[in-house]
């Protein structure tokens, strides 16, 4: 017999044996050996569930189903635990969002961590944690028509000298004309200076004066600092609520509904007229969202996909539950990605 034939036979045998070896060992698991494994896994799952380690308990039940897909107890427990994990995670996430809106960062962090412990795939919870539990690196800002880089610099840094920095952060030329609507990232220039407790009285007095003078943006700067030092400082909360409500009304009248919503969301507890304003805002936001949605559709039909996406993003800003806008963005982004791939090829 020719040597190549022997070599070929040998190689083929070894390869087949490699597979067969696994099959043989696999077969062992189907025999009497699998019962102790299933028992151990079930015991482990029960222990984990008792300790509220739902994901680990689920891992055990899922593993039992790999040994025996018809295992009734495992099927029932998997279904029950998955539903329980999802439900608890969702409730915890809502609690976290509410705590964030009410400026209770510790409660928010705890609730978001619980969410992720129960459902590690809850991406929104992770995003919220990373966004709100870290010192900001950038602030996102939606430019208003007619604003220039120098205007933004003055707005955020109180000097026009930061225009270059904003341009650099957004990959824009220094003298770029800003087109609306567009979001820009504004680098946070320096860590806020440590707050000195003895300044509390002085800052409160200033905040009171500014509030009486109707300079509510400045009031918010002061109250934010005051509440960072003492989150329960009652007068600071009252002053902030008043300023937020007044600014919310102003933005509402100016049809800047997203800003108005952001202002009102930060109000802690009850405030006279707040619910009525929220209702009006919701109605107007939805109307405005429909206008943007239709504009987006028009752009889409004219093959201006990026402008379409920009409009639909505005829709989501006004009405986060607008499912058509979310679906349209996904569709347009898929198309944009395909176009990009084709162009690269």
């Amino acid at each position, binding site marked *: *017999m020719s040597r190549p034939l*022997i070599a*070929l*036979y*040998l190689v*083929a*045998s*070894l390869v087949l*044996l490699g597979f*067969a070896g696994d099959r*043989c*060992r*696999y077969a*062992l*698991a*189907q025999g009497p*050996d*699998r019962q102790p*494994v299933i028992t*151990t*896994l079930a015991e482990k799952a029960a222990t984990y569930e008792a*300790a509220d*380690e739902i*994901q*680990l308990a689920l*891992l*055990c039940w*899922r*593993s039992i189903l*790999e*040994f025996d897909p018809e295992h009734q107890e495992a099927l029932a427990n998997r279904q029950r635990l998955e539903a329980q994990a999802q439900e608890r995670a969702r409730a915890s996430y809502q609690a976290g969002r509410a705590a964030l809106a009410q400026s209770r960062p510790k409660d928010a962090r*705890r609730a978001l*961590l*619980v969410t*992720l*412990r129960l459902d*590690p795939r809850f991406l929104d919870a*992770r995003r919220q*944690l*990373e966004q709100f539990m*870290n*010192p*900001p*690196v950038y602030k996102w800002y939606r430019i208003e028509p007619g604003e220039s880089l120098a205007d933004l*610099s003055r707005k955020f*840094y109180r*000097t026009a*000298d*930061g225009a*270059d*920095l904003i*341009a*650099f*952060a957004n990959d824009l030329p*220094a003298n770029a004309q800003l087109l609306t609507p567009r979001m820009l990232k504004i*680098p*946070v*220039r*320096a*860590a806020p200076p440590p707050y000195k407790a003895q300044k509390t009285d002085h800052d409160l007095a200033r905040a009171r004066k500014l509030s009486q003078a109707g300079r509510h943006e400045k009031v918010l700067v002061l109250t934010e600092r005051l509440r960072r030092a003492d989150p329960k400082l009652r007068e600071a909360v009252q002053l902030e609520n008043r300023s937020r409500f007044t600014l919310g009304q102003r933005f509402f009248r100016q049809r800047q509904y997203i800003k108005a919503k952001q202002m009102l969301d930060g109000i802690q507890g009850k405030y006279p007229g707040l619910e009525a304003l929220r209702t009006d805002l919701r109605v107007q936001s939805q109307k405005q969202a429909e206008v943007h949605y239709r504009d987006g559709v028009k752009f889409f039909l004219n093959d201006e996909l990026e402008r379409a996406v920009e409009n639909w993003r505005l829709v989501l800003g006004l009405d986060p539950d607008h499912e058509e806008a979310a679906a349209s963005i996904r569709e347009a982004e898929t198309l944009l990605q395909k176009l990009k791939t084709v162009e690269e090829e």
Partner: protein
Amino acid sequence: MLTAFLGAIPRADSRVAAGRLAARVCPLLWLSLLAFLTAACAPPLQVRPPSELLAISVGPDENLDDLARRYLGAADRRWIIQDFNAIESAAPDQLLLIPRRNYRPGGLTPDGYQMVPVLAYPDISTVKSEQVSRIADRFRRQMQYLNTEGYHVVGIHQMAAFMAFEATLPPKAVVLTFDDQSRLFFDLIYPILRTQQFPATLFIEPGAVGTESMATWSQLTEMMESGISIQYRMPRAVAQSLNPARFPKQSDLAQAVSVLARDRLDIETRGGQPCRYMAYSGDQMAALKILLAEKAGFTGGFNLAGGSNPFYRHPFAIQREPVSWDEAPKAFQNHLLVFKAEVLR
């Protein structure tokens, strides 16, 4: 194949043919027997490995290191088996479960969550020469403390995977980093790390490699081959150019980015390993440093703010805890916050 093989035998004399057949088949039989024996001697995987969780029975002479090596790819991953099965050692015939994926994302438990201290040692070459041997001795004791108290020293990439929610870290995980690239480090500190087999990270400025009293590229490469990661430290000149008192020009920022990107590539080319992380100091201008690092192609940044890190820390603002070379174990242990207790139910 076998039919073709038999078909090739001449049929003239059946006895001769039988003899020839035996002569040809015998080696194959021996080879097949050998292959079967090889398969039989393969690790006794007694039960089927499910995709997420492996169930194994401990062999007569097997210990946790053997199991970790066989099923998890490395002996130093024995902690996974210990942690998941709540055991210290394995007994023959014991049924053990081995998770094959990230089973505790973020180190979240019902009683709190994992924190990862990143210890930052300063440049040893700044120490007075008469103190050097005493300091090396103290450092050795610090490393022994980590070993005897059950801390797990992990590498910077493992930590990055943990923070990205992609990997579980061992309990009591610690990261060691050094702002040092001196020859003294190579001569005194590296041997201690090598003895303990601790992965560590050196943050270096490539421009200074091989200059007076600094380690050479061949020394750095030797360290890299034994598990030391070489990453980048923002040069003082670049940091100083970011004067907090004035805003940088766009051209200055572009220049700074090109320096960082060039240095990063230099480390990757000479070291042959990816350079993804940048260390920087100071809180002031942190956002700007992060912006520069992002634009230069880094994926993470380490500051010197002090404290330990939860998984949700901003990837460019990972906090390093400054440690002195000569701290006694009692003071040293204060740097090792590895768990944040908080009810997460």
